[in-house]
């Protein structure tokens, strides 16, 4: 075994350590707050959400701070996982076979590493959108301090911010769907941290081999 410490006493595989899980939930909580208040600012039909969260003016005041927290969490993820998220050859093949993945024919998928191509897409999606949201968010946060001569920054930001937010919402919907409904066991991985061997073998065979060791696993 290459990483015996990642095998739990019950024979399960530790996928996410405590710091990773904590960071995930900091990101999740802040994102959900950003999503709800953001949707309230986005649509009059949902404006009541901001009112429900302590008042609309309070929501507006806290939204950017939650944004900073979220951005911090995303940057921590970058620090932890960027190296593992690099595009590899297996990812190209994964995308070519994505119709199997979406119709639950996982046996036809090329062996993914710790993160499959979809998850890498999510990671980079949140990373880049996070940066766009932060930059445009800062302009919108302090828009009254920006001089008239720099107003083009405001005009750009009012498009970039909701557009980037919508992209993250798309990613988020799929992420929730996958993590809560589609992949049984995935949710536990960010609560308890561990997954079953079957889970690991099925969804991340490359990673499973790494952890458990042995050169019997075919490398593609």
């Amino acid at each position, binding site marked *: 075994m290459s990483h015996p410490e990642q095998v739990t006493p019950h024979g399960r595989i530790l996928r996410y350590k405590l710091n990773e899980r904590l960071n995930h939930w900091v990101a999740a909580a802040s994102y959900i707050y950003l999503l709800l208040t953001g949707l309230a600012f986005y649509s009059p039909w949902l404006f009541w959400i901001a009112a429900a969260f302590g008042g609309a003016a309070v929501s507006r005041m806290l939204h950017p701070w939650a944004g900073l927290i979220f951005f911090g969490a995303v940057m921590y993820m970058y620090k932890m996982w960027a190296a593992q998220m690099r595009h590899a050859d297996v990812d190209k093949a994964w995308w070519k076979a994505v119709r199997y993945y979406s119709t639950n024919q996982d046996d036809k998928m090329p062996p993914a590493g710790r993160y499959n191509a979809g998850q890498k897409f999510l990671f980079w999606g949140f990373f880049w959108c996070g940066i766009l949201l932060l930059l445009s968010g800062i302009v919108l946060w302090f828009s009254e301090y920006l001089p008239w001569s720099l107003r083009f920054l405001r*005009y750009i930001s009012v498009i970039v911010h909701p557009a980037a937010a*919508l992209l993250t919402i798309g990613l988020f919907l799929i992420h929730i*769907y996958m993590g809560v409904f589609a992949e049984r066991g995935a949710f536990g991985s960010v609560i308890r941290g561990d997954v079953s061997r*079957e889970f690991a073998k099925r969804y991340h065979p490359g990673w499973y081999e790494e952890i458990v060791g042995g050169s019997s696993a075919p490398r593609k």
Partner: protein
Amino acid sequence: MSQATLRIQKISGHAGSVPGEDTQREYTVCKLIDTTTCIGCKACEVACMEWNDLPFGETFFDNTYQTMPETRWNYWNLILFNEHEREDGTLMWLMRKNQCMHCADPGCLAACPADGAIVQYTNGIVDFQQANCIGCGYCITGCPFDIPKMNPKTHRVFKCTLCTDRVSEGLEPACIKSCPTGCLHFGSKEDMKFLAEGRAKQLRDHSNFPSAGVYDPPGVGGTGVIYVLHDATKPEIYGGLPADPSIPWTVKLWKGPLKWLGNVAMVGGLIGLFVHYLRYGPKEREDEDISPSGAKP
């Protein structure tokens, strides 16, 4: 109060219809500012401060008679002074009373996400309701005239109200009342346009201002505040009055196509994922043996 809400024809950030649409026979009001007879005495600045009980702010000398560089959250009405040299070498000292233009199609209202923070009355007055303002500053982005100003402490925006409290009692705005030269007029949009066009013609016919005209920009649907300018072909010389103002296209894009696209995408996405689950269900139960076909043990 119920009668007051009937006077509202547009509300920012509002889901559903507006109570006051089509309920009133009111005409739109209009403030006419004749820059050619303004002497820059600032009685209108003082009247606005006094009527609205605005607190004083700090000012300092800045090589101009202009009271301060731009309007503030507590200074809604400001005469802009500009020295302009014409082609023939003569110098004009231009004075333009600057305040909210009360656009028929207000950019601030379009951009505002907060329900009821900005309203437009059936008489055309655009009013900020600070109790509903969330301090996001989108109105600042939406306005092509750089008018809304935020109080940094309370995070509410303020601007000229066209003295809606006076107008609803049948009085003219405070600035109009205080003007000693009579360069400010108030009445229906129709009457003010008539006055303004007449004055502009008088200037063209009898004074050395062949390009005198009326400023009532169509790009924002026309404004509740119109100007008579000595030179209507060059509004920028009057302290940066925009020549063809409109709501910034990115704001229109954001509140229009982008919003619809986003709504469709989000709702469609939710529905799509629900349908996917019905069709395909979860990948597998966690504890099932699911050795992939072709995988070596």
